[in-house]
């Protein structure tokens, strides 16, 4: 059985369209809420039967939640690894839920409901992980969507809630609001001007933290950072969001300023560096994932600085998702070895750039 992604109205990646605010710097905004269903042990402690009961209870509730009327459900526990990897590469399910994390084998009852920009993971570390995903820097819009979904679902499924500690979660770092807002942001200007260390240090002083492209435990690659709130308890959802909004807003300004400085003080050096990145992507015959990410970062910066005018942010966003290993294998219709993957990636990137190359430069 393979996964039929065509069931998803926008392939689950509507945010790629770069329609949101500041989408030259901010790729996407995600807000997730961790919730548990009352009456069952938390997922990792629960028995198979309990997890399946959680799933059927949630499934019944979802069928009458208005924002999930069109939702598609995937049972991860019934999908082959390639299909699960595909959903993970689209950021629609976590590594743990997809059973791709060596420490946590795929578990029975692992499922995800996906609708336009909304998702509900079932039997993740917590019974429920609700998430809203938006293009660009759109914290308020994402929060409005997730809050509505949370209220609708919470009036049909009883959440575990404690008067003093708030929403209860398996890991104490999520307890309280259960909310993690995170902004996926591209900061090549701050990295090149070596300002990034200061910016990241100030994030931590402000109660925020950062991670790589794939969330907790992932490396920072291609100058993409996910900035999110560190704590979830002791402040309201609005306060947490407000803090994130102000601090990330400030980071966006600093990045824009760094880009202006780069262009002013090192114009031709930067221009040369970025065109070389473009040249490599346009003509290379083999590309590793990290290489592709780093060169794409350069080309994205060049587009942001208007050095390359005919390439859209949408195409660059698509390249980030579709040049990953599982997507390449899916497109080729077969499993690929590592070196075949690198060849396939270079071919895919070359073709995508060729198609838009008409008036580049």
């Amino acid at each position: 059985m393979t996964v039929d992604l065509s069931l998803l109205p926008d392939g689950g990646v509507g945010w790629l369209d770069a329609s949101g605010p500041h989408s030259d710097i901010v790729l996407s905004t995600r807000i997730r809420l961790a919730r548990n269903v009352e009456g069952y042990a938390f997922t990792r402690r629960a028995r198979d039967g309990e997890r399946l009961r959680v799933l059927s209870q949630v499934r019944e509730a979802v069928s009458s939640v208005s924002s999930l009327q069109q939702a598609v459900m995937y049972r991860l526990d019934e999908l082959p690894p390639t299909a699960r990897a595909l959903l993970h590469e689209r950021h629609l399910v976590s590594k743990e839920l997809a059973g791709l994390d060596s420490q946590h084998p795929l578990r029975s009852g692992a499922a995800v409901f996906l609708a336009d920009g909304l998702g509900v993971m079932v039997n993740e570390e917590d019974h429920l992980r609700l998430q809203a995903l938006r293009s660009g820097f759109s914290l308020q819009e994402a929060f409005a969507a997730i809050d509505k979904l949370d209220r609708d679902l919470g009036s049909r499924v009883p959440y575990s809630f404690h008067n003093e500690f708030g929403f209860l979660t398996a890991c104490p770092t999520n307890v309280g609001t259960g909310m993690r807002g995170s902004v996926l942001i591209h900061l090549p200007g701050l990295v090149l001007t070596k300002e990034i260390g200061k910016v990241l240090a100030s994030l931590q002083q402000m109660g925020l933290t950062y991670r790589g492209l794939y969330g907790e435990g992932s490396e920072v690659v291609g100058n993409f950072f996910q900035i999110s709130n560190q704590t979830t308890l002791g402040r309201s959802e609005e306060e947490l969001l407000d803090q994130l909004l102000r601090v990330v807003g400030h980071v966006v300004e600093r990045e824009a300023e760094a880009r202006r400085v780069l262009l002013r003080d090192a114009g031709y050096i930067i221009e040369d560096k970025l065109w070389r990145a473009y040249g490599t992507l346009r003509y290379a015959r083999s590309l590793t994932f990290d290489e592709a990410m780093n060169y794409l970062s350069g080309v994205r910066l060049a587009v942001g600085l208007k050095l390359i005018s005919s390439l859209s942010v949408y195409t660059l966003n698509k390249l980030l998702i579709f040049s990953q290993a599982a997507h390449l294998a899916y497109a080729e219709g077969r499993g690929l070895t590592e070196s075949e993957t690198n060849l396939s990636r270079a071919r895919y990137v070359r073709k995508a750039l060729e198609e838009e190359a008409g008036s580049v430069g």
Partner: protein
Amino acid sequence: MLCDSCRERDAVVHLTTIEDNAVHQLHLCERCAADRGVETTVATPKHPLGEFLTAHQQTTSVSDGVRCTFCNTTMADFRATGLWGCARCYTNFEAGIRELLRRVHGNHRHVGRSYRPPMSETLERAAVLGELKDRLRRAVESEQFELAADLRDRIRVLE
């Protein structure tokens, strides 16, 4: 410059916070900064639980044998995994959890949105419906049509 908090040691951390649109400068020594949960290094964002767990892994306390009445989790289990086993753990290990939350979040009191679970009647109905629909799906898949018809009737009544 002396630390604003203890007024004894030299301030090495200069913290700028913004509250109600006013900028506050706070100068702290390393120890007071750490007490307030201010990280002073940039290199790797630490998992906030890490330190707490390491500190507590070295001490075994008398409460170690206590088990959660619902899921059987012990303090030792928590130390090994960093995860609680169920919602009831939060009541069974309440005192320890309060201290833990203070360290992790700098606070132990939820001030966000409050929540009241739905009435139990609606819930039971929903749970039974979910179960019946699952069984119906399986019945149809295994071509047990008589059973399926029966299940469909029962679902219709509940709906």
